[in-house]
């Protein structure tokens, strides 16, 4: 039964997506919307027991399920979650629910297809987080690209074709190498079971090549500097819902890849080359922080801000001191992944709210929005502050612990990372000032209407999440602790012989 919980998390949204798809053309858009909402709600509800029944004191895989799939190659339908993945399954289903509400009346064309794409993608993402078989993971990981490609390519902005192809090729190129890595690991272990790889002895050369393969797959997804340039384009062209899922969830899958594959499978190489990851992460925090500062397009700005925050995440993952990962840094990074899920989704939703009214993402086209949309401005303030890592909001928790962890490893790394306190506040608040404060800037702003009930609902839910996690992060960090300890153990072992 418990294994079926995960099955439900994967297949309920996919099934719901197929049903929504079956409603067909836009003459039945209303039905499609309500069906999608029901499906997303069901998809979210089935993930709740994953949290309530999760044994936080146990580092092992839970809700496990194994069924043979392609027996001749020993490929199994093997799913399960631990403290590293369980939160993301829930976060993903939660975000999908919000996305369905967010797109409610905003999407007017091909409604059923739009909703279906998100639902199906939600199931596939859950699959990728839950997969414990390398091939199964690969299938979900790649399949996920298709709905996102369609979402950007069909419902996107004017340069959607360039953006969607760039997105698709970038990520596909990266992940092809992972497939090679998996086949190599199969040749060594005789199985595609990811957990089998954790204790598999591997020479340094093999580990380095594996690490490079994983790096290309996951660094593109995160994205880490310098393979990040697809993200701003994808965000700018994607519809609001696409941006929300992209920022809140799919980036996390890249970071998750490092936890699930790179660190435990190639621990010696990871330790040896951790400095590369640290250096690239710091570049992301500082370089990208400064690039974000000068953006004139709000979505691009938040996209760059996402890259910068994800730099913090990868930084946290590679904080080795004397061959041991730092627990503060890893837990902080995971907390940051969750909080960034809330905050980035909220930021993109806020931009979407304004875009729906003014049809511009340019900062220069706004000014004085607070005069016309005070409720919206208040919510946006909260999320902007969370993006800047204000204590009491979700955004603080992860950044705080990553910096505390980094101090224990290398003071100057922490020093460089902590500049985000300044850059993060600078680019977020400067944007906020130019968009929200001031006199009413133009006729478009003068005609703005404050948020409607649907938008209020999404904003309020996200606000509760952001404040809740900020004021009481224990429920989020507790579930990860044992699995992080286990990961630290795995990453500290040597596989050389």
């Amino acid at each position, binding site marked *: 039964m418990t294994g079926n919980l995960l099955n439900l998390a994967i297949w309920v949204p996919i099934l719901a997506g197929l049903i929504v798809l079956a409603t067909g053309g836009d003459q039945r858009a209303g039905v499609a919307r309500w069906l999608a909402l029901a499906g997303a709600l069901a998809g979210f509800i089935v993930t709740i027991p994953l949290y309530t029944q999760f044994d936080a004191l146990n580092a092992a895989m839970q809700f496990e399920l194994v069924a043979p799939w392609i027996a001749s190659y020993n490929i199994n339908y093997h799913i399960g979650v631990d403290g590293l993945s369980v939160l993301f399954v829930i976060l993903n289903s939660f975000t999908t629910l919000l996305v369905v509400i967010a797109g409610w009346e905003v999407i007017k064309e091909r409604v059923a297809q739009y909703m279906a794409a998100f639902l199906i993608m939600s199931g596939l993402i859950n699959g990728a987080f839950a997969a414990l078989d390398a091939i199964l993971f690969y299938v979900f990981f790649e399949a996920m690209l298709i709905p996102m490609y369609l979402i950007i390519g069909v419902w996107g902005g004017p340069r959607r074709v360039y953006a969607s192809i760039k997105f698709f090729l970038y990520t596909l190129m990266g992940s092809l190498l992972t497939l090679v890595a998996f086949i190599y690991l199969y040749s060594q272990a005789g199985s595609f079971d990811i957990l089998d790889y954790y204790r598999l002895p591997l020479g340094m050369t093999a580990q380095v090549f594996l690490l490079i393969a994983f790096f290309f797959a996951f660094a593109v997804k995160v994205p880490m500097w310098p393979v990040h340039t697809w993200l701003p384009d994808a965000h700018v062209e994607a519809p609001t819902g696409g941006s929300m899922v992209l920022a809140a969830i799919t980036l996390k899958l890249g970071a998750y890849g490092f936890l699930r594959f790179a660190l435990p499978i190639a621990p010696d190489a990871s330790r040896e080359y951790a400095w590369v990851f640290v250096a690239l992460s710091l570049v992301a925090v500082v370089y990208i922080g400064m690039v974000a500062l000068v953006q004139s397009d709000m979505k691009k700005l938040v996209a760059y801000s996402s890259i910068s925050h994800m730099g913090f995440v990868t930084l946290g993952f590679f904080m080795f001191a004397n061959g041991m990962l730092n627990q503060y840094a890893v837990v902080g990074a995971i907390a940051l992944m969750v909080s960034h899920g809330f905050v980035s989704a909220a930021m993109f939703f806020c931009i979407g709210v304004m875009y729906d009214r003014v049809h511009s993402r340019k900062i220069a086209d706004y000014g004085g929005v607070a005069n016309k949309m005070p409720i919206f401005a208040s919510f946006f*303030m909260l999320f902007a502050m969370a993006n800047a890592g204000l204590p009491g909001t979700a955004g603080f928790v992860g950044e705080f612990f990553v910096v505390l962890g980094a101090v224990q490893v290398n003071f100057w790394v922490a020093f460089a990372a902590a500049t985000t306190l300044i850059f993060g506040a600078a680019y977020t608040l400067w944007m906020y000032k130019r968009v929200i404060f001031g006199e009413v800037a133009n006729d478009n702003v003068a005609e703005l209407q404050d948020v409607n009930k649907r938008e209020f609902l999404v904003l309020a839910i996200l606000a509760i999440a952001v404040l809740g996690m900020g004021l009481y992060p224990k429920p989020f960090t507790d579930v990860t602790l044992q699995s992080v300890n286990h990961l630290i153990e795995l990453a500290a072992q040597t596989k050389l012989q």
Partner: protein
Amino acid sequence: MDMKTIYLLIPLAPLFGALVAGLFGWAIGRKAAHTVTIGGVAVSFLLSAYTLKYLLGGGEAFNGTVYTWTVIAGVDFNVGFLVDTLTAMMMCVVTFVSLMVHIYTIGYMSEDPGYQRFFSYISLFTFSMLMLVMSNNFVQLFFGWEAVGLVSYLLIGFWFKRPTATFANMKAFLINRVGDFGFLLGIGLVLYHFGSLDYATVFQQVAADPAGWQAKTITLFAGHEWNLLAVTCILLFIGAMGKSAQFPLHVWLPDSMEGPTPISALIHAATMVTAGIFMVSRMSPLFELSDTALSFIMVIGAITALFMGFLGIIQNDIKRVVAYSTLSQLGYMTVALGASAYSVAVFHLMTHAFFKALLFLAAGSVIIGMHHDQDIRNMGGLKKYMPITWITSLIGSLALIGTPFFAGFYSKDSIILAVEHSNLAGSGFATFAVLAGVFVTAFYSFRMYFLVFHGKERWMSAGHSHHHGDHDDEEESHDHHHGLGPNDKPHESPWVVTLPLVLLAIPSVVIGFLAIGPMIAGDFFNNVIYTNLEAHPALEQVKHHAHDALAMGLHAFMTLPFWLAVAGVAAAYLFYMVKPDLATMCDRFFTSIGIKKLMEEKYYMDHLYINGFAAAGRAVGTVLWKVGDTLLIDGLVVNGAARVVGFISGMVRKLQTGYIYHYAFAMILGAILMLSFWLYVWGVSGVFSN
């Protein structure tokens, strides 16, 4: 009610008020909004007073957890309270000033459309400040620290339509973030080396082995070992430099005057800006162990105390004079910290909170009376029209300059005594700075006082022609013009405005006399603030004087600071009442030698930040974006790769012509090449040798 419930209620009551007024202010209206927030703060104040009484009556200090925020690596991060005499004193100051400001706001903001929002913010501020001072650990301290920064940001930008206000609030937030950057790293070092962020655990560890901790080093640059506690304390103090506006992170405070006057009194004079002073005092067990850090603190404080005082002399905006005075006084407190006289710093913090809040609120009252003209050159003779504001301002000014028996006298003289007896590097300069500062303080305070309340009634001639610069309050909310019209007369403010003035004037007179005995000489801060009297004996000297407040006041008439203050007042009287030509002459002299320009540009610090750091940040960002991302990564690598693929496939495509003879020719060519290759290989390997 047990004490823990009381301690919980103290911050939660204002939070409740803030939430009600903020979320439902639109529904419940103005009166209900101010009633609920004032009620919340009043409850908080009464309970704080009760707490103080309880502790003075021998009650136990409280140190306990409210809830566990999170647990990582086996370390608990809690939300919890430490309520001892230091906390209780801060709670009383914060809630009392806050209550006064709440009441005052009814009058000051009466015509503002953002009335409920304003009440919500100031109650939220009170909550945040209480969380800061009541914390028993670094995490919650940091929460309160940044939360007060947030509310300060919201309130400086309260009139968000004004570009100057939204510039000022962003500047304040970012400069504070620079301080917090150091603060966070300091907290990181504390956790790393002490394994805990609870005050008690950390302090117990240093107390158990002070020499051992003093000997610990940290290597930040290869080959250079630095004292661990010195590095940690300086990093923590950088946080205080941001929040308490110490040079060179002081630049945000004068601009924060863009906010409505009540919050200038509450946040930017009495409470929030003193958080840094409070924090260092709270951490006295750590700071006491590093002479390097203390010297650093003393010098920074001395620079702030003197040089910010100078700038007060040339300000013409009534609020800015008080703002620079606040900077200077914060410098005094910081100097006291550096001299290890933490209790003296906190004592000055308390007296300053009363008389500076009074001066700000009185300035606000003057601004109301002058119909939102803030330029002191347009005032004069107001004592006739605003008697209560006049008397209370005089009391505030006398307290500020350290007139014997007034509150400020006891605290400022104690600081001067402590610095004179400090044995640390930099104390010579600090002594000079605090003494010179006495003259400067007296001069700018009474320059303002004389210009505002005495002399010619200049608003008659000022008319509309050059009233108010860009710093007038409440543009949008007032239909009537700014400044007084030709037939207008200044008028005394309503009772909700004058009552807080009177209530603040009382402690501005008596609190020093009453409190110096217990707070400095007595055992009020025993076991709360730690001073190593053997290493830093300065406080001993202060204690010696402080045990008899009456004698201290009488003795003052024979000391240098008193005569410096008298000289300052006399100079101001001479320049602005008797011989205004002298002031003009001086002005011309200082202009000719370039000093006036230097002061008008505020020592060019704003230029450094705005045209230096901020502009450089944007320029580097643009280069990284345009060159790094767009040109190199995207242009060269990503699209370049695409173009290479496109180019090659274009070439290959051309081979597929569709003509059969092309294919036939290629096949023959291929066959010949293959054959030649194999013939060559066979030839080399000797297949044909026989």
